[in-house]
């Protein structure tokens, strides 16, 4: 072979190899592989489903991203969506799919595994975990007695530059959807306008915890488990921060439900139903309760991690998890300039 011939052969074989290797990453379409679009924390979902493949022979492939991103992606994909199961961090995103008619009804036996407060009346999806809204604060920056009575007070001018939120994240957007459901559109618009002036925007709840811990900002709106998880790991990030629960049915005591649903467009509905049933059954729920995730279990009869204050003592407002309006929240937040 001539020198140039060898070079050409080298180039061609590299190309073929590279394409073959790159192709390895693309989605498999085996009969027994479910594609799961998951917005819940990777570690939590993987822990709960640890033994699923071994017990059922069904392989799982995850696409991990944000609640609203995945929900809107499924809507765009429509009939062609590769997703079989959708797992959310918060319920507004899965509610959007329900209203669009993109979810298949779940089996009654699956629904019955979860308390009624943690699933929608439609029966097209079901909660598999829950988390409580909380205010994280730094006691050396602000004493506990100066904390606001309601989360809505954080829109007052007195809080200018003193409250942290993760506006781009699905968690905060879920909290806004609860404010919208409880207080109505005008009050929500006013609250968001106040926050636009007052809030320091962070990229995530972990970033908020770190900022509060270091005294960059005295308080932040977050979910309970970020702090508990950090405490369990010896307070690596948030050892100086504390949690404050609003209680009293305040919008700031909102409990957000993580939802699981089967896509109507899936051609593996049977396996997908098994996955959702597995996720809400006692074994996976106990695995959640026993894990370091420190979110609340919602299976009837499963007690949550003992480190957490009992869910029913948090004074959460009554909100229909199926009635939260994600598109309206996006619109209001864009209007306020928070997105």
């Amino acid at each position: 072979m001539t020198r140039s011939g060898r070079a050409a052969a080298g180039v061609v074989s590299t190309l073929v190899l590279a394409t073959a290797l790159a192709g390895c990453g693309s989605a498999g379409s085996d009969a027994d592989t479910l594609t799961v679009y998951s917005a819940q924390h990777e570690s939590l979902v993987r822990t709960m489903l640890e033994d699923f493949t071994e017990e059922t022979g069904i392989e799982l492939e995850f696409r991990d991203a944000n609640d609203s991103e995945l929900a809107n992606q499924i809507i765009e994909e429509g009939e062609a969506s590769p997703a079989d199961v959708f797992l959310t961090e918060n319920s507004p995103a899965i509610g959007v799919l329900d209203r669009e008619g993109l979810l298949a009804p779940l089996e009654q036996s699956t629904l019955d595994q979860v308390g009624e407060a943690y699933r929608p009346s439609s029966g097209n999806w079901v909660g598999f975990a829950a988390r409580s809204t909380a205010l994280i604060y730094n006691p050396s920056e602000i004493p506990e007695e100066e904390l606001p009575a309601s989360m809505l007070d954080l829109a007052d001018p007195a809080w200018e530059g003193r409250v942290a939120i993760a506006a781009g994240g699905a968690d905060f957007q879920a909290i806004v959807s609860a404010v919208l459901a409880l207080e109505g559109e005008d009050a929500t618009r006013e609250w968001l306008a106040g926050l636009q002036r007052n809030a320091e925007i962070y990229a995530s709840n972990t970033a908020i915890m770190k900022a509060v811990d270091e005294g960059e900002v005295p308080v932040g709106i977050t979910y309970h488990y970020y702090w508990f998880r950090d405490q369990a790991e010896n307070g690596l990030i948030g050892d100086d921060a504390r949690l404050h629960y609003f209680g009293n049915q305040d919008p700031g005591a909102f409990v957000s439900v993580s939802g699981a649903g089967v896509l109507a467009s899936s051609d593996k509905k049977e396996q997908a139903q098994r996955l959702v049933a597995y996720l809400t059954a006692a074994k996976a729920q106990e695995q959640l309760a026993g894990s370091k995730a420190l979110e609340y279990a919602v299976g009837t009869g499963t007690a949550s991690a003992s480190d957490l204050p009992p869910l029913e003592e948090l004074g959460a407002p009554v909100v229909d998890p199926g009635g939260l309006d994600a598109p309206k929240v996006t619109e209001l937040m864009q209007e306020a300039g928070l997105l």
Partner: protein
Amino acid sequence: MLRPRVGELLWNTTRLVLGTVAVCAVLGVGAAWLVERSSVPGRRLWHVLLVAPLAVPAFVNSYAWISLLPGLDTYAGALLVVSLSYFPFVYLPAVAAFRGLDPALEETARGLGLSGWAVFRRVQLPQLRVAVLGGSLLVALHLLAEFGALQMLRYPTFTTAIYDQYRSTFNGPGATMLAGVLVLLCLLLLLAELRLRGSRGYAGSGRGAARPVRPVALRGWTAPALLVLAALVGLALLVPLGSLAYWLGSGASAGLDGADLAVTTGSTLALAAAAAALTTAMALPVGWLAVRARGRIATLLERAAYVGSSVPGIVVALALVTLSIRATPWLYQTVPVLLAAYAILFLPRAIVTVRAAVEQSPPLYDDVAASLGSSGADRLRRVTLPLLAPGLGAGAALVFLAVVTELTATLLLAPTGTATLATAFWSASSALEYGAAAPYALVMVLLSAPATVLLSRDTRRGLTP
């Protein structure tokens, strides 16, 4: 509806671009003068050290700074971090321009009684204009497209806001509208650069003989000059590398998953190799036509490719998401779409080097081969391609490196379950798991280092198209 937000983003983006371009121009030209025209000791070493920051991707630099100093999330912090990442874009063409200056002009000016400062301002600076403008344009375009570095510094610009919109609405109208404004800004920049460059030429009547210039003696200024260079290199290179080393230490204690790192590195290399091969293959006919078949169509073809590089990755990715989901749903979320994005974004880098290679290989050889009865295909294989091989290799290497550190398009388009070094680094560092992110950053820096060495050697080619 979005007007207040757009106004805020416009203000943020504009002041960061203006500030960074100004700082980079001062740092780049100043450092280039010291290295090329002054008597500062260790000029060769300084040159390599001043190009080296290019091996540290901006988002890794940003991570290194913010993980050490969380208070950097301000305008000044963003200005500092991105300037340290981008000043070599001005430094490199400025060095090349200093080298190309005819010393006779300066000597004449000095002979006519101009002071050293006046010679710099009235003789050298005007001749550096094209190089500095080219470098500044590159800084500005990179900045408009920058996502990772600014998101980590909590400094919102159009690109980070588009990503937030994408996370909240997939590709809703809000994201598309912001992307439209961003593309408009990029086009404005290109136009402004063309305008500013003007038509005044500074070419001499004859090239003159290249000869070494006698450096300006710094005398008492030697120590301050060394101090300034050391500070610049320390901030731009030692801080990120030191921070990386620190987090690598704590990452190892947190338990490094070697298998994960290996798999991720493997898929990154495979993607980068495929993209490099594809993009170079596409650049070959364009570069060839631009030299050998000069004409309106060839020029149009070449220029059209450049538009892609001025459009931020997030915009290209957003467009490909929409296109593939509507027109070719079976291709959606697959490797070919991701490769197409890389090709659109990095084609100009390959074209520049391929074009230079074609220019350097005389058509005579092809003619001789043809006269000896070689067929077209045979000629391509035996004469043309071997002659172009170094240029093709360089082009492929540039694309390869760009893909290794690409973040936004990969985040949006990667197939389910595929992680690259950049996305794995990103997910760990945005969860503030700095130790876990460090190994991925290190591999990216190591992969980028060889190309940086090449760049520091071949200054004349520079980075600008």
